[in-house]
Structures are given as structure tokens and as C-alpha cells.
């Protein structure tokens, strides 16, 4: 077993983990009479009291529709809602708050880009390149664009380690048709961080834009879209300790300016007549209808929460956890960890000889340990890895080394049943 002294040391170095855990009411829960060990934060993270309270406060004291009313309540709610745009701009270090578009989630953000930028700026015969380790959300919208608009969809390979294969990428770009590179910033299966600055440079040197799926990365690391030189960056609020139903699309101002609306309705117009309507400027051009007001306010509270802890501490904590998790899992005979990327974060997928991922998940669940099992919305990647499904443990800022030790012990019991 792994040295518990190491686990204890791990807690004190970066943050007061016990205090943090008290901020998340659900972590005190029991499942099947056991203490909940929640290792499925990559699917959706738990919510701190600050987020819950902010949403409840808004409903109890400060709620009306936004951008419409001339009354006090509406103005205050609009201020709170628009204030979150500033917070998101700060989180991503965007050049302007007008570069932040609120959507439902990262999936909708990518669909928005595929539907508007994809049809208005990309031309039939142009190509979009994705990688072999994309979530379905960064595959299917491009397939739909391909089928509707005649844009070619190409796939760059990954190496056996689970890193972007730059030779393959080079080959995909060779004929000069590629106008957009759409890749993950951190794989939801392998935990690989992609070298986003290098990828952006690579795309730009070849006349293409770059879209980064930051759904996983934004939770674990400080993201600077200007330092990366990202053209598009997307993420979901619910993985960043915020509520579901609110997501973000960042895009450079000049790109958003050139994009037509996604959906039509209230709030996205400058003026409307039966003959013709004209569009509001970005970001409101892309926010038709009453938005997710409460969820946006919740996201703002989540951003304040992670900022108060600080990304340097969060990143250091998760790096130590990942090392610990890899050590714990490597000790289990017959268990294979997928991917060996140099730069990887708190997402570990694995398979066990003789035991199906769903059996692993069920047996762990019985011990109070929540992991995900399945194809993780990345079926093509499963094919590339030669598996049909994996079990996945993923970490958050509230995850402890003891919980990873519990996972190791739980897996040892699974192994016993299946040996």
C-alpha cells in the first residue's frame, strides 16, 4: 500500500483541504452506508456553499428578467448577470468582456461556432481538423457541418502515449485546405494536456484558426486565452463547481463581429420589423431569449470561489494528487492505465484484466466510491485505444489522497472477486 505519511503531507502543502471539503455540503453524504468518495468530478463537479447561496440569494432577494425592465429589480439583476461576464473575462484573461458569450454548456458553444462561423466564414472545400482524443461534443458538430455545408472533416492522430502526433497534424495540414483546428485542451479520458500555445502557433502559421475545448482544463489550470492566442475557447460551468445550464464561448472580437446570429429572438436584435431585423453587437447577438440568469450568477460565485483558493494552489494540489493516484493504481497488478502523457492532470482511465468497467464501477459504488465507467462520450478514442470502455477516476480541488487510497483498496477487492 502507499505510504500514508505521503497522503498527510500532501494535504498541508497547498491548501486547507478539510476546510475546503466543509464548503461542499454533499461531500458529507453517505452512499450504501459508506462515506462518499466522489471521484467523478470530470463528469460534473460538486457545488460549494457559496454557489448554492448565491443562487438562493438571487431567488430570494434579487431576481427579475435581465436587459429589459426599467425597474430596480431588473437593473440589479442585469448588473449581477453582466458582472459575471467580467468575471469570466478575468478568468480567461480575455481582452474584452464583449468576447464572452454565455451558452448552455461547452457543447452548445461548439455547436454555435460550427453553425455560424462554420457556415458564414468556412467555405465548401475548406477543412476542419480535430484530434483522435476528442469528446463527442467536438466531433459531431463538425460532422453536421460537413454534411450540411461541404466542409471536410479530418482527424489528426495521437501517439500511443496519448499526446497529439504533430507529424500526423502536419500531414493533415499539408494541402493548405485546413481553416480550423478544433482540439481539446485536456482529454476527458486520458488526462493529457495538449500544448495549446504550440498548437495555436501551428494553426496560425498555416492560415487556420484554433478552437480549444477547455471543459476539463479550465477547472485545473489558469487559462490565458491571450497568451495562448486562442481564437475560440469553450467550457461548461458545471465542471467548474458552478451549476449546470451555463457555458461559455470566448472568441476574439473581430471573429465574433463577423459571425451571424445562432438563434433568433429577443435580446439579440438591434431592431425588428416584419421586413427586416438587424442584429445586436456581440456578445448579445448570440444570446437570444431569456438567458440562464440564476445559473450565470452561480457561475460567478464559482469563479470567485476558485479565485479565492487560487489556481497555483489548485494546480499544485491536483498535480500531487495525480502523482499519488498514478502510484496507487500502478501498484495493482493486472490494472492498466491508459495514456502516459508527459503533461497530464487529474483524470485517470484504466482497465483491469478480466473485469469489465461497469462491474468495477458497481463494485466500487457498493463501497461508496463513485467513478465513471463507459466510453466517456469518446467512442472513437476507445477504438484507438483498443478498448470498448474504461473506468475513470477524476479529481477536483476537494479530492484527498486518502480517497485515492480508498480507491486502491476498493480496486484490490474488485480484483479479488474477479481473480
Amino acid at each position: 500500500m502507499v505510504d500514508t505519511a505521503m497522503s498527510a503531507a500532501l494535504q498541508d502543502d497547498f491548501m486547507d483541504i478539510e476546510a475546503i471539503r466543509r464548503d461542499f455540503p454533499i461531500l458529507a453524504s453517505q452512499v450504501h452506508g459508506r462515506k462518499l468518495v466522489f471521484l467523478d468530478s470530470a463528469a460534473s463537479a460538486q457545488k460549494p456553499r457559496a454557489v448554492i447561496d448565491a443562487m438562493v440569494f438571487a431567488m430570494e432577494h434579487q431576481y427579475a428578467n435581465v436587459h429589459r425592465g426599467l425597474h430596480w429589480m431588473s437593473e440589479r439583476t442585469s448588473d449581477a448577470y453582466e458582472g459575471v461576464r467580467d468575471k469570466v473575462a478575468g478568468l480567461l484573461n480575455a481582452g474584452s468582456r464583449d468576447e464572452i458569450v454565455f451558452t448552455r454548456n461547452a457543447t452548445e458553444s461548439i455547436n454555435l461556432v460550427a453553425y455560424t462561423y462554420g457556415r458564414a466564414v468556412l467555405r465548401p472545400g475548406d477543412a476542419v481538423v480535430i484530434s483522435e482524443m476528442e469528446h463527442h461534443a467536438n466531433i459531431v458538430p463538425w460532422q453536421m457541418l460537413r454534411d450540411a455545408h461541404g466542409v471536410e472533416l479530418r482527424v489528426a492522430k495521437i501517439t500511443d502515449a496519448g499526446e497529439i502526433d504533430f507529424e500526423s497534424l502536419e500531414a493533415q495540414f499539408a494541402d493548405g485546405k485546413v481553416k480550423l483546428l478544433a482540439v481539446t485542451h485536456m482529454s476527458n479520458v486520458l488526462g493529457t494536456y495538449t500544448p495549446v500555445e504550440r498548437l495555436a502557433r501551428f494553426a496560425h502559421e498555416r492560415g487556420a484558426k484554433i478552437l480549444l475545448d477547455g471543459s476539463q482544463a479550465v477547472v485545473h489550470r489558469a487559462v490565458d486565452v491571450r497568451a495562448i492566442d486562442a481564437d475560440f475557447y469553450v467550457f461548461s460551468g458545471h465542471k467548474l463547481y458552478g451549476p449546470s445550464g451555463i457555458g461559455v464561448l470566448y472568441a476574439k472580437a473581430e471573429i465574433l463581429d463577423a459571425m451571424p446570429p445562432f438563434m433568433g429572438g429577443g435580446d439579440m436584435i438591434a431592431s425588428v420589423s416584419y421586413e427586416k431585423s438587424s442584429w445586436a453587437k456581440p456578445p448579445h447577438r448570440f444570446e437570444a431569449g431569456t438567458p440562464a440568469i440564476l445559473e450565470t450568477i452561480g457561475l460567478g460565485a464559482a469563479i470567485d470561489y476558485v479565485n479565492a483558493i487560487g489556481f497555483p494552489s489548485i494546480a499544485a494540489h491536483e498535480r500531487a494528487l495525480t502523482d499519488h493516484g498514478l502510484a496507487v493504481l500502478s501498484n495493482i497488478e493486472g490494472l492498466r492505465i491508459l495514456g502516459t502523457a508527459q503533461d497530464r492532470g487529474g483524470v485517470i482511465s484504466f482497465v483491469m484484466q478480466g473485469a469489465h468497467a461497469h462491474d468495477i464501477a458497481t463494485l466500487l459504488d457498493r463501497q461508496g466510491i463513485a467513478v465513471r465507467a463507459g466510453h466517456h462520450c469518446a467512442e472513437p478514442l476507445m477504438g484507438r485505444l483498443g478498448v470498448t470502455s474504461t473506468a475513470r477516476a477524476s479529481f477536483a480541488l476537494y479530492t484527498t489522497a486518502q480517497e485515492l487510497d480508498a480507491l486502491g483498496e476498493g480496486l484490490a477487492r474488485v480484483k479479488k472477486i474477479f481473480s
Partner: protein
Amino acid sequence: MSDTADLYQALIMERTKNPRHAGKPDHFDAEGEGDNPMCGDHVRVFVQNDGTRVSHVSRGCAIMVASAELMADAVAGLSAPQIAQRRAAFEAMVNSGAPDQSLGDLNALAGVSEYRSRIRCATLPWSALAQALTDGVD
């Protein structure tokens, strides 16, 4: 192991590790298949009508493989209407968790009722069998 033995008991593990009805027969009269898109599980069921002998090719979890095995035991020699009846009783049992004496060894899967997402694993071979009996050989 009382916390897990309810579902992953000896009979299920034994039949998963040492299946008796696995493999595609050279000759068969009907074939059906089942997929679980959530996990990629896949089962093919082959029926030989000489006494309704059932075999299966399974790629999936212990629950699905054991269920295919116990199903093959449980339907041997039965007519199609009897199989349909048994399937209904089995599905009722895995949904309710209440053992049904008439189902014999199939009751080993009663524990699956506690895991809503796993009930499908237990019923998948039965839907494949039902498909085989409806469609015959394509």
C-alpha cells in the same frame, strides 16, 4: 464481502469465468443481437430449434455474460411462448428484486434491481433471444 456478495455471488462469477454456452454454433436456426450503447456491451444469441438450444457470443460485463449463461440454461427445451413467459417473469424479478421460485438459478441476478443502470445488462441477452425468435435468421 457482504456488501457486494449480493450481486457478484459465486454462481454469477463462476458462470462468467467458465461459460458453458459460449460460442457460435456451426448450424443454427435463428440469431438475435443486443447492444448497450452506454457501455459498448454486445451480445449475439444463436438458437437451435432441436430442443431450443441457445448459445451466445458476449462482449460485456460479468452481469451480462452470467445472464446469457443462466438464460441458456433456463430456456433449454422450452417453446417460444414458454420462453416469452419466462422472459417476462425474469424482467419482473430483476426490476423488483423479489425472487421468483419458478425462475430457479436466474434468481441469482435479483441483486441487480438495486442498480438501475445495470438492469439492462441482465436483460440484454433476453432481448437478443426475443429478437432471434421473432426474426429468425436474416
